[in-house]
Structure formats: C-alpha cells, structure tokens
C-alpha cells in the first residue's frame, strides 16, 4: 500500500496530480489557491503515493473551483418567472457545482482550524511528528547496531552527552539518539491510531444502536460496557497481554480497543439520545425519510466533532497504555520505539548519570509533546466540524 512512500515515484505522482489545480488556477487567474493546491498534491503524493495524491487532486481542485465558481448561470438566482427559467443542468455543470460546494466546505474547515490559536499549534505539532516520521528517514539513517568505534579514549562506556556531531548524544551502545527518536515514533503512533480507530468504531456503532433501538439491545450493551468499566483496566491489560503473548502490534491495538470502547460508547449513546429528540429529526420522521437517512444525514453530521474529539482521546489513552506495557516489558513492539528507549535507558541506569540524561529524557519529551499536540488540536476540532461556521455558495 505504501510502496511509494517518500520515493521519487511518489514525488512524480504528486507532481502530476498537482498540475490540475495549478493549471486551473493559472487559467482562471486564481494563482494563489492554484499554487497551494499544487504544493499540497506534491507533498501528499510524496508522502503517501497514489493514496495521498489522488484524494488530494479532488480536494485541492475543489478548492480552486470554489474560488472560480461564481453563481452566474444558476437558475436559482433568476428573478424571472417560473416559465422563463431553464432548470436544465448538464452533468458537467452539476459536477462543477458539487466540487465548488465541497471546496467551500474545505475552506470553512481550514478557517475553523486557523481560528483557534491553541488548536492550530496542536495541529502544527501533529504535522511536525508526521513529517518527522515520514520524511525523517530520508535524511537520517537508523542505527541499530552497536557502534564500538565511537568509544572515546579513556571512557568506560559508549554513553555520550550531546555534542555537535550527535545533538542528543549517544546511547549505551553508542547509537545516535536522534535516529531513534526519528524512527521510534512510527510504530507507536500507528498502533495507537489503530487502537483509537477501532475503539471509536465499536463505540459509535454500539452507542448508536443502544440509543436508537433501546429496550433489550440497550440493556445488553449497557450491561456489557458496565462490566468492562468496573474491571481495573491496566491490570487486566497486563494479565491479558501476558496470557496472549501476541507477537504483532496489531493484536495489541485490537486488545486496547476491546478494553477501551465503553466510556466513549456511553458518551455517544447519550449524544444520540439527545440528538434524536431534536425537532429536525421529528420533521424527518413525519416526512418519512427513513431510518438510514435519519442516522446518516440528520444525526451523524451533528456528532462528527464530538466523535473526532473522542477519537483523539482514545488515541492518547492507547498510547499511554502501550508505553506502560513496554515499560513493564510486555509489549510486542521492537526497536526502534520511544517506549523501548525509555525502558532501555532505565535498565542501563541512564537516569543516574549526567551523560545519559538526554537518552532518558528525549523519548519522554517526544511522547509528552505528541500528547500535548493532540490535546491542543481537539480545541480546533469543534470549530472545524461546526456546520454553523459554513457558508453556502
């Protein structure tokens, strides 16, 4: 899936994807959005290959179209009487109109992102870590083996404090700590996100079902969630982790998700219960728009920011749990990994040596900064998904 990650092929894909928004922007004299669209395509193509470039074409072109699109030929603006207006619209016009409205939404979302300073800083923080894990490996080589040759004359260990050559110093085996920080986030972040996604999916599905169906289903789901909530989470996780002895991180994510959905499920259930009493839902019932429409079109869009915020919280919780497991030596993760760095530095006594202080602190600071970015970012989510900040065409 990610063969083209950060390769020349990805860059080429991104370049060609970016030509469309750029060309449109130049043709219709919307240079700025055109260039931004081009850069966005280039970067996302570079980062994720086809998986980044193709969606980004649609998004960035929509934004450019939304700048170009002025309502001129829309029959709705006409002040003529009904019979004189032509309501026909070709498929092409229809697509352009839809893209323009998508572009509007994206612009409103980015405005929402920029509005809250704290949230934007959080977003930048997250982007920093994403860029570091995706592009960092291009410039920094990973050092997995012991580096005996770095031993300094007269020194008893390979441990070194920061220097110009090694900004964060060397660890017990003489390996560059910067390289471990750069490579060590990937697995941890991906596993946490997997756990967060699964936990959110379970919670949203069960929570909506419980709220909408009520009765026995509601009681069963609530009983199950209460059961899981009453067991102390971390000890249970420990016990399960040692019993299952899994060897891949995906299984760990599944386990974390299975243990962490109840709290979010309750929140979603309460939210759906309140949303389904809204007047517009009642109107949808008298208009007989159907259950699917009511869930997906009336209730869900008003819950997205709530779900997104809780998704972030789930990711955070999963990350803490994983690091906790690593520290207790019970995680399937392997080097390079921030959690394992903490474990190694502790077992090698870096906490007691002035030379090893960066080795011990670097992964802790990295985890803390990532968590802080997530928390700050949740402040913006509310504004990004708030439909009340949107303007129509």
């Amino acid at each position, binding site marked *: 899936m990610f063969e083209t990650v950060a390769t020349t092929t990805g860059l080429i894909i991104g370049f060609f994807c970016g030509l469309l928004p750029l060309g449109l922007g130049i043709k219709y004299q919307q240079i700025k959005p055109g260039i931004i669209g081009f850069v966005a395509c280039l970067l996302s193509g570079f980062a994720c290959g086809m998986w980044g470039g193709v969606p980004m074409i649609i998004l960035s072109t929509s934004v450019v179209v939304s700048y170009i699109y002025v309502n001129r030929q829309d029959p709705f*603006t006409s002040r003529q009487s009904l019979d004189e207006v032509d309501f026909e619209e070709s498929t092409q016009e229809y697509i352009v109109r839809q893209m323009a409205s998508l572009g509007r939404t994206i612009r409103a979302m980015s405005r929402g992102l920029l509005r809250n300073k704290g949230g934007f800083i959080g977003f930048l923080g997250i982007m920093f870590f994403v860029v570091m894990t995706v592009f960092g490996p291009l410039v920094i080589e990973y050092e997995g083996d012991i580096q005996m040759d770095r031993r300094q004359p007269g020194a008893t260990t390979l441990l070194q404090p920061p220097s110009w050559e090694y900004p964060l110093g060397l660890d017990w085996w003489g390996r560059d700590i910067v390289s471990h920080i750069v490579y060590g986030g990937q697995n941890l972040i991906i596993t946490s996100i997997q756990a967060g996604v699964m936990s959110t999916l379970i919670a949203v599905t069960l929570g909506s079902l419980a709220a909408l169906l009520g009765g026995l289903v509601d009681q069963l789901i609530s009983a199950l969630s209460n059961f899981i909530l009453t067991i102390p989470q971390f000890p249970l996780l420990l016990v399960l982790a040692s019993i299952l002895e899994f060897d891949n991180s995906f299984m760990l994510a599944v386990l974390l998700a299975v243990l962490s959905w109840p709290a979010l499920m309750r929140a979603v259930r309460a939210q759906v219960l309140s949303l389904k009493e809204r007047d517009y839902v009642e*109107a949808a019932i008298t*208009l007989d728009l159907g259950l699917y429409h009511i869930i997906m*079109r009336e209730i869900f869009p008003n819950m997205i920011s709530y779900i997104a915020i809780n998704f972030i919280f789930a990711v955070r919780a999963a990350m803490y749990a994983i690091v906790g497991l690593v520290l207790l030596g019970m995680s399937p993760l392997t080097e390079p990994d921030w959690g394992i760095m903490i474990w190694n530095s502790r077992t090698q006594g870096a906490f007691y040596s002035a030379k090893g202080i960066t080795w011990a602190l670097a992964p802790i600071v990295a985890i803390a900064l990532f968590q802080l970015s997530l928390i700050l970012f949740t402040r913006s989510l509310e504004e990004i998904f708030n439909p009340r900040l949107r303007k129509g065409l």
Partner: protein
Amino acid sequence: MSQQPLVELHGVYRSFEKERVRIPVLQDIHLNVYPNEVLCLVGESGCGKTTTGKIIASLLDASEGEVLYNGRRMAEYDRKERSLIRRQMQLVHQDPFASLNPAHTIGQILGYPLKRHKMVNGRAELRRRIWELLTLVDLTPPGDIVNKFPHQLSGGQRQRVSIARALTVNPKLIVADEAVSMVDVSIRIGILKMLHNLRDMFNLAIVFITHDLALAKYFAWEGRIAVMYLGRIVEIGRTQDIIANPAHPYTRALLSAVPEADPNLTRKKQPIPLRSDEIPRLTAIPPGCAFHPRCPFYQPGVCDVSVPRLAQAPGYAQDTACIPLTTGEQLVPYGT
C-alpha cells in the same frame, strides 16, 4: 360538518412516565379535524396542546382511546399506506432555530423528501420544484436562499423554509405548533396570511396551536377553537360563537384579558378575576372539574364532585364542559 374527518380522536388519554411517576397529560380528548378547516388549540402553557398536536400528526401514540386517520386506525393500514398517511400530516415546529438541521443547506432540506418519495423526475425537475416551493413561501429570489445554511437566515425566513419543507410531500393537514410565537411580531402577520393562502391553494387543514386567544381569534375567525385546560378540552366550537358568547368560565376569563382594537371597548370590559392564579400540577389534578379551585363561579358540592363532559349548554352554540351550564343553571359568582 358531515365530511369524513381527516383525524378523529375518541376518548384519548396520554400520560408520560417521569422518574417512575405517571404524569397524565391528556384526558378524555374528543376531537375531529376536518379537511380544509382551521382549528385552533388554545390554552395555558403545559395544558397539553403540543401533545395533542403530536398525536394528531401521528408522532405520538395515545395511551388509551382511539385515533382514526381517514376513518381507520393506523394499525389497519399496511406499510405503504401508513407512510402515505403519515406524510399527509405535517408539523411546523415552534422553534425555527431547532427545526432545521444546521448541517444541511436549504436546497438539501427541501430536496431530501422530494427525492425520497420520488415526487420529481431528474435534476431539472427537482430544481424547478424547489424554486416553486421557495417562491410559494415568499422566499424570493430563490437563488439567495437555496444554497444557504439555516444559520444564515432570519427566524422568519427559517419558519418559511419549515413550512415549505412541510409542503414538499403534499400534505392534507399541517399542525402549526406556536408557529409564530418565536418570530418577530412585525413578520407574524405575513406568515399567518401566507398560511391562509396556502390553505386555500392546497385545500389544507390547519391545526393552529397557540396560548394566545387573541391570535386564535384572528387566525381562526372562519374556523373553530378548542380551549384546553389541564389536559382536557373545556370548550369547543366555531370561533365566532365562542368569541361572541363564551360559555366556560375559563374561556370567559381568558377572553376578558384580551385587549380590543378599540380602546373604548377595552375600557368597558370587565376583567373576570380568577380566585387563584396558581395552575395545579398535572400530578395533583383537582377532583371533579379541574378548574374549580380557580373558578369564579365555583359551586361547592357540584363542581368538585364529578368530572364535567363536553356538551351543548342551553343558550350556546358551542360545546362546553361545565356542569352548572350544561344542566341549564345560571352561573353565580362564588360566595354570593
């Protein structure tokens, strides 16, 4: 009126369960809604107007009693017919800020029901129909509205969108629940007039819910009024009969508080003071006539013993639920 009523309520009771306490909200409601009529439900806050309106619109079930739509119970219809019947009765909510989904544009709000029920063929017709609907509710030019989100419109405009949305499915009856009470006074009349026009145009029946008897008098002058008190209908009949000659003491009290356009008339009006301003709670409804603790014409031993039923009183054209009146007695002020 010998027409087949659109909706009939026969001895309908409705109660809600709140913290394991049963709250009786509606009791023994008898009410018919006929095609193309205007029926006003009037009463104080909490007397069960909205609940009645929702039962009429088939959004709520009756706890007891029978509700007939076009002469048959809902359960007698099959799935398809039920969907059709439900669509025949639309509700316009009180709060225009809560009744439109903030996530949809006006075009989407009107488009969903049109598409869902295949009321239009193809995009051109859909656009044409939305244009038509927006023009019908005086939101012109439609282009200024159709791509906007509800939060970009004023309260009055939203209420018009809400009415247009009800019209998408060609209803036979619209329940307007305090439809103008949250709208600026200056645009109320416009919306009320529009409702009247729509009624004529589409042969609609309108159940208009309000706590304001003056508004009911204005809106339902050609129609009927049902006055509700604590979950019961205490007086029902043609608006002109009730306004000219109110029977029930509660209606008289309400009417005496309505200002007249002519200040001389207002000054001449004798306010009818109630014996108490306190509305009893629904969990402790007084025995007999629920109004007796406040009634200025209370007759001990009569009013607090048995529950009055709606019947025509001698000398009145409308039906009223007051034992002294229906047995042909004169009302005498309490304590004289």
